[in-house]
């Protein structure tokens, strides 16, 4: 095998560790040894070993227990079990749990070479599979929009359909749900994909500036207009214009844009010559525009112009099944950006991420993972790395019953007090026995680890 691997030999016998250490060194592999399962797990926390050779019989934590823990925390790590003739049944059990191979000791040197050869082939296939899976994912999942929940699948299925027409699209969704990504995906799927995609945040600029940005202006029409400038409606020429926070634009600008959409021509500020324009409009809002229409702050005719097709982008709390996939995606992204070896999230931490409601949606989740990766000192993100997340805050949601709310509140207080029953009971102003009863009733237990 030509690929150099990072290998850890885990055996309580020093002589065995030494033999394998020197053997693997002859192939140029990065080799480390551990005399117990505990030491191996400690070393795995700080370095992502690809391959573990584990003796099945060790005092304290045996090879099977270590294998189980490794496969839970680091499922990509390859484990080869070393076993004596008498413990062949354990080897079979190990293979069921997820060991890649096993060696009966003592073994011939070429048997070890054969195992390494097989692992090398497997590694190559896995790496090719991951590459192709990623490529395929990018092709079918519109790069960067991550998810497999029914809610996001619905959006995925709409994108290629709506991309084919020129009808105006209104994307509705909370802040941070990825409306611009969906707009880009629609543009990328459309016949206009080779032409510009221009995004403007209407809420971020005053009316006069927005007008100038969209329509352009002639030289000298206002202070600071030292030269003529084309507006984005002209610059986009044939491409897609994405107007974010369309609910924020003024009634005057609504009329101007309505006219452009109807007549397909613009007149820049200070000019009398109309110019033909061709673009596809995608707008986005986090507001309820129907209510704004009813309240008279948003023009009804303009609303129907921009809302020929409406796509609702679900908030993250309604597609929590996508959280693990999103976390994996952001871990990978920030692993590459920061070159820190953070590969995994513990079960408890993932549970914490799933419980939180993410009012800032995917953007907030991304920021949380970035912050945790940057500050993490090990290769696994645990609950302590996410201590800045404060779930579950009291959820005065209509969907919670009084009993459910009581459970959520008690759990929150217990977590805040590190599951110390005495302290929590004091905060709740009940006695310890009552709290114990309530914990039993609601099956509230301190998470392991």
């Amino acid at each position, binding site marked *: 095998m030509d690929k150099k691997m990072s290998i850890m030999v885990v055996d309580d016998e020093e002589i065995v560790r030494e*033999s394998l250490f020197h053997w693997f060194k002859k192939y140029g592999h990065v080799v480390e040894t551990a005399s117990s399962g505990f030491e191996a797990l400690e070393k795995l926390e700080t370095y992502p070993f690809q391959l573990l050779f584990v003796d099945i019989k060790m005092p304290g934590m045996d090879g099977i227990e270590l294998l189980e823990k490794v496969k839970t925390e680091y499922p990509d790590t390859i484990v080869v079990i*070393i076993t004596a003739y008498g413990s062949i049944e354990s080897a079979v059990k190990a293979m069921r749990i997820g060991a890649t191979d096993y060696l009966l000791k*003592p*073994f011939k040197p*070429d048997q070890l070479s054969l195992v390494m050869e097989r692992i090398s082939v497997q590694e190559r296939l896995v790496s090719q599979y991951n590459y192709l899976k990623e490529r395929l994912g990018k092709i079918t999942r519109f790069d960067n929009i991550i998810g497999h929940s029914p809610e996001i699948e619905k959006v995925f299925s709409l994108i290629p359909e709506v991309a084919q027409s020129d009808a105006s699209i209104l994307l509705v969704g909370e802040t941070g749900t990825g409306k611009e990504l969906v707009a880009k995906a629609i543009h990328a799927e459309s016949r206009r994909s080779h032409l510009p995609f221009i995004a403007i945040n209407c809420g971020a600029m005053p009316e006069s500036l927005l007008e100038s940005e969209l329509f352009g202006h002639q030289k000298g029409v206002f202070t600071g207009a030292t030269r003529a400038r084309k507006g984005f409606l002209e610059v986009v020429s044939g491409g897609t214009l994405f107007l974010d926070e369309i609910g924020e634009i003024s009634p005057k600008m609504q009329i101007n844009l309505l006219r452009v959409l109807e007549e397909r021509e613009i007149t820049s500020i200070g000019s009398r010559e109309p110019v033909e324009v061709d673009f596809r409009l995608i707008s986005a809002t986090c507001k309820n525009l129907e209510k704004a229409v009813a309240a008279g702050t948003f023009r009804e005719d303009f609303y129907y112009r921009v809302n020929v097709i409406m796509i609702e982008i679900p908030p993250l709390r309604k597609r929590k099944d996508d959280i693990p996939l999103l976390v994996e995606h952001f871990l990978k992204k920030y692993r590459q950006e920061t070159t820190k070896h953070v590969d995994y999230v513990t079960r408890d931490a993932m549970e914490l991420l799933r419980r939180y409601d993410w009012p800032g949606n995917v953007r907030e989740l991304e920021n949380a993972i970035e912050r945790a990766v940057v500050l993490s000192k090990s290769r696994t993100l645990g609950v302590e790395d996410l201590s800045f997340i404060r779930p579950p805050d009291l959820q005065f949601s209509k969907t919670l019953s009084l009993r459910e709310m009581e459970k959520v509140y008690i759990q929150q207080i217990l977590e805040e007090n590190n599951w110390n029953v005495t302290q929590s009971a004091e905060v709740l102003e009940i006695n310890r026995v009552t709290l114990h009863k309530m914990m039993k009733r609601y099956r509230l237990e301190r998470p392991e680890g």
Partner: protein
Amino acid sequence: MTSKKKSVGVVPLGDVPEITLQVIADHITGCFKLTTQILPPFEPPDDALDERQLQYNAGIIIEAMEAMHFANHDKVIGVLNKDLFIPIFTHVFGEARQGGQCGLVSLFRLEKNPDGSTPPKSIIHERAAKVALHELGHLLDLLHCEHRKCLMHFSGGIDEVDEISLDLCEYCSIYLQDKLR
């Protein structure tokens, strides 16, 4: 910076035919361009014999050799006629630690063909020279090589020892030149 030519000692451990030692020394000089010297024999340490396996533990012999401080030689190859093993492996033809001072060659399994027949002496000498050069390669920090014919390719069986050549592949040759510079 001037380079000092490395010298290699060839030492018999127990009763080893002189012609075999001479063949090994000549191949080291011829192939690696290193000066060699055949050293006086000594017996492998008693505790190297594993009485259950009736084999000699290569690691223990190498440690005993390193304790002898061969001050006049940069590298030393020990040659013996005993069956060698390293813990966890059933047997080895030779053994050396990466970048170490002392390595070993066992003639025990080189004197039989895979089918049990006895090969001519010339074949046995060629095998001994290959194993000695391979282990010396490890002492000079060369790694196992992918190239099937390269001297540094790992040989698990005697047929594979016969398959490799006495030469290093292009890459290992360059690496060796760098190491000897």
